[in-house]
Every structure is written in C-alpha cells, then in structure tokens.
C-alpha cells in the first residue's frame, strides 16, 4: 500500500512537471530583432579657422569631409543579433596639406625617392620615407609656402575606413544581454584594431537597466612629420645638402642665415616617434531608470586610460625663446602671422610632444520627458576631467515636435566649455625648457555653441520599398558649430533606416 501511494505521488509529480514544461515550450517569445535592419547615414562637414595645429597654432584650418556609414543588423535567431558597421570618410585639409607647405602649384618641387634613405634615420625614431624629403627650387612662381594657403602635397587629403562586427545574445526573459565586438580602421598615418564586450542586466520589471562595457584599442602610428624637420634628419643635419641645398634661409631680421654657423636653425630635438603604439583601454558603466510614465533618466561614467605616443607627429611647435628662421620671401617676414602673408614659411622648432599616458573620466546624464503627444524634451549633460588638466562641461537640449504622425521637427542647442590642457600654449608662447608642449587649439581653453535643426520622417508600416527593403525612417539634420577662438563648422547629415521583409 505504501509503495502504491509513493508511486502514485511520484507519477503525479512527474505528470505535473511535464505539464509545466509543455506549457513553457508553447509560450510565445518575441524576437530580439524581428527583421534585418539597414541604417545608412551620410554627412558633409566643413570647417574654417585660423589656428592650424600643423603650422604651430596659426594658419588655415579649412577642412572638408564627406563620410558614409552603413549598419546592417541581422537577427540570427530569436535571441541573437549580428551587426556589421562600416564607415568611409574622405577629407581634404588645408592644415594637413601644410605638412609640406613647399609643395604647391607653380613651384618646381619634386619629391624623389633618392632622398628616402631610411637606414640613416632608423635610429632617429623611424620617420616614414613616404612623407617625402623634397628638393626645392628657387623658382617660386605666384606664391610661396605659407601657413595661410593650402599646399598640394600628398597629405592634403586622405581616406579613413572602419569596420566593426558586433554579436549580442539576449536571455529568454530578455533581462540579460551579452555582447562582443571587434573593429579595425585605417588611414594614411594611423591604424587601429579594437575589441570589447558588454553586459546588460534589466531589473525591476525592466524599469532599471545596468550596462557594463569594456573596450581595448591597439593602435599604431605610421608617423608623418613636418617636412623641414625630417628633411633635416635625412640630410644628416647638413643644411647644405638634400632639401636645404641651394635654399636660402632668413632670420627674423630678414638677413640671410649662415648655414655653417653654430646659431643656424635646427630642430630642438631630432629624436622623433620612438614608440609607434597608441593604446586605449576603457570601462563604461551606465544606469537607465524609468522615473515615471513620462520620464526616464540615464547616468554614464567611463574610465579611459591611454598609453603610447599620444602626440600628433604632424603638428609643429614654435618656441618663444628660440630664434626664428624662414624660407621664402624675406619682405613678408614681418607680416608672417597675417593672412596677407602668401609667400614665407617659418621653420619649426619641434613637433608636438605630450605625455605617454592620459587618464580620462567623464560623467554623463540624459533626461527625457514626454511633455505631450506633440512635444518631448531631451536633455544631456556631461562633466569631463583628465590628468592633462582639461575639465569640461557639455550641455544640450533638444525639443522634438511632431507636426504630424509621420513628421517630426527637432531643433537642438549644445553648449561646450573646456579649460586648457597643462601643455597648451599659443604660437611662439612655449619655452624650449618645457618637457611637454602643444599649440593645438583643440586642447586650448574655449567655449563652443552649436545649434541644430532636424526633420524626421517615420513610417512604421514601411509602405515605401526599395527591393525588399521597406523605408522606415528618413532623417535630415544640419548643425552649426562656433568656437570663441574663431573656429566655425557646419555639418549636414542624411540618414535612412530600412527594414527587410
């Protein structure tokens, strides 16, 4: 009797459990991503300014960039998503072109392989032969070298390409999401390889989300240098040979410099990039919280450590306590810092040199509030601090306004302010006794205002189709950016979102 009772109980338990399992297996589970989605974004960016870092903090900063990005997100199964993200960006830059300011239309400049004797300079920091030690002719045509006009050198334009692969997995209850990514990018003087992972946990009936991310970028410079500095090294510091052969160099008083004098021009340091590595390690933590039926908030904090060659080897520095020397039209020397200077160029004292480590800690917050069916408030704030002395505040506000069920207008305003890095000083303000120095105005003290306006079209039913791709969203936005140092920029972006049937 006891055995029968026991077996009966056992049978009921097993039957009950199997019923539960069966009920679970029939439960509907929404996919993390229902269909393949394709996002396309293109932008045109233009800037102008008078503080080019390549020419030591003065000079033409005109730059134009055209970029495109595509992201394809593919649902692998109910729980997993695979994404491919590719970007191509092509720019032309007056500042970068003046890496070799002596290469311009009308001059007889030749860039020859005969000067690219890498073996004589291997111990000097591994300069790159392709940047071109140049022969200069005295036949200057309509203009000369100047920081105020762009040259036509190879460094005038470049293309940056990037590819990222991302894979994410969500748990069945969608409360845990793990992901991993790898990326690679390349431009003429820089390449990058990166990888990372992320973990997201949702709590409190999905009212609370915590995200953890870690990323590593193992980057390498392919350094390019100001032409006079690496030509000096190529010529074994002989101002009578190579690039400088037959070239007249003037001092500040417009007198011809004696190239054999002990006081002749020379860079303060002929050791260039010794370690081409530039690695970044970042950890990010964020919390998202629903405050009410109409409000939600996110908090972010990152810790970023960078190590390696953190300076830009293209960027010149001029010291106030060293004599100035020039190539070009001597009568323009007194006018050097004016835009009316079209034919004289000052030889650099050194390249930018910055510490080999940098620790960055930004804190950010987003707060969004659904005012009514027509209007939403989106806000963002960030405080940033690093051990180079830069502290900054960023604040932005956006007011999306639905003018119909398909169209939304979104004006925005962003304010940014930062203190200067400890190592920044304007043109001719550094001293040769300093260990670290830069005249890059991106590291100076400034405020910036940015005003934007966008329009968005959304069709959740994707009635318009191209092949199998249904058009879900079109975005068009223009932003204007102005710094109180004189830099101004504009960017127009166009984006499309497609959903594949």
């Amino acid at each position: 009797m006891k055995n029968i009772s026991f077996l009966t109980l056992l049978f009921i338990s097993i039957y009950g459990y199997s019923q539960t399992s069966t009920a679970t297996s029939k439960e509907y589970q929404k996919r993390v991503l229902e269909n393949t989605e394709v996002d396309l974004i293109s932008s045109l960016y233009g800037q102008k300014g008078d503080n080019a870092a390549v020419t030591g903090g003065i000079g033409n900063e005109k730059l134009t960039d055209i970029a495109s990005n595509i992201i394809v997100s593919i649902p692998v199964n109910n729980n997993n998503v695979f994404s491919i993200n590719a970007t191509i960006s092509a720019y032309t830059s007056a500042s970068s072109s003046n890496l070799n300011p002596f290469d311009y239309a009308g001059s007889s400049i030749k860039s020859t392989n005969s000067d690219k004797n890498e073996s004589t300079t291997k111990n000097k920091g591994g300069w790159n032969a392709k940047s071109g030690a140049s022969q200069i002719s005295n036949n200057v045509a309509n203009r000369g070298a100047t920081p105020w006009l762009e040259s036509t050198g190879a460094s005038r334009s470049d293309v940056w390409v990037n590819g990222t692969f991302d894979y994410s997995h969500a748990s069945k209850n969608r409360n845990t999401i793990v992901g991993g990514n790898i990326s690679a990018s390349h431009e003429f003087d820089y390449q990058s390889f990166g990888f990372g992972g992320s973990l997201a946990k949702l709590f409190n009936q999905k009212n609370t989300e915590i995200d953890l991310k870690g990323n590593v970028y193992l980057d390498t410079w392919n350094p390019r240098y100001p032409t006079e500095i690496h030509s000096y090294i190529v010529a074994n510091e002989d101002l009578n040979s190579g690039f400088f052969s037959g070239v007249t160099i003037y001092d500040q008083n417009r007198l011809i410099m004696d190239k054999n004098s002990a006081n002749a021009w020379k860079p303060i340091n002929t050791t260039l990039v010794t370690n081409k590595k530039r690695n970044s390690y970042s950890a990010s933590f964020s919390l998202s919280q629903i405050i009410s039926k109409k409000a939600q908030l996110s908090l972010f904090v990152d810790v970023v450590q960078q190590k390696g060659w953190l300076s830009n080897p293209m960027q010149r520095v001029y010291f106030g306590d060293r004599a100035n020397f020039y190539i070009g039209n001597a009568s323009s020397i007194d006018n050097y810092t004016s835009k009316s200077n079209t034919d004289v160029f000052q030889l650099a004292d050194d390249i930018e040199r910055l510490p080999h480590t940098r620790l960055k800690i930004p804190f950010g917050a987003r707060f969004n509030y659904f005012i009514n069916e027509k209007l939403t408030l989106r806000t963002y704030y960030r405080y940033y601090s690093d051990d180079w002395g830069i502290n900054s505040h960023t604040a932005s506000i956006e007011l999306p306004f639905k003018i119909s069920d398909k169209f939304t207008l979104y004006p925005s305003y962003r304010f940014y302010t930062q203190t200067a890095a400890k190592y920044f000083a304007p043109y001719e303000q550094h001293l040769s006794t300093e260990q670290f120095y830069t005249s890059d105005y991106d590291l100076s003290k400034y405020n910036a205002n940015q005003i934007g306006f966008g329009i968005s079209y959304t069709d959740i039913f994707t009635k318009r189709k191209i092949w199998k791709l249904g058009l879900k969203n079109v975005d068009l936005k223009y932003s204007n950016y102005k710094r109180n140092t004189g830099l101004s920029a504009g960017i127009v972006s166009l984006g499309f979102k497609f959903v594949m049937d």
Partner: protein
Amino acid sequence: MKQLFYLCITVMLFATLNSCVAVKEYDKIDLNDPDMSLSARNINHFETSFQVYREGASGANGGKSGGGCGCN
C-alpha cells in the same frame, strides 16, 4: 577630489533610483516613443565624431570613449 565627489553622487543616485515605482509594460506607451530613447540619435553619428576630434572631452554618452583614431 572632484572626481571622487561626482562618483559618490553617481553611486547615491544608483541607490535611490532603484526605489522608483515600477511602471508596468502596458503603461509604457509614452516611454516607448522613439523620441524618448535614452541614446543619441543615429543621425548624430558623424556630429559626435567631429566633436570627439575637435574637443578635448569624449565619452559618457553610451558610445565610443577613446581609441580608433589619432584624434585627442
């Protein structure tokens, strides 16, 4: 010191926000509006890029925080 102060504020906010009333899924209609998303708009992708290049600060916005380019 300032960094420690802000870190403490962040931790306190983490502790207090978790006690907010949970909004049910069926009450999240307004929260699920695309304009309420707690991330930057996709269209701002290249805008964020030029800001990273031109400004000393980066990060703390849910996106990339460093590396991948020779920018600051």
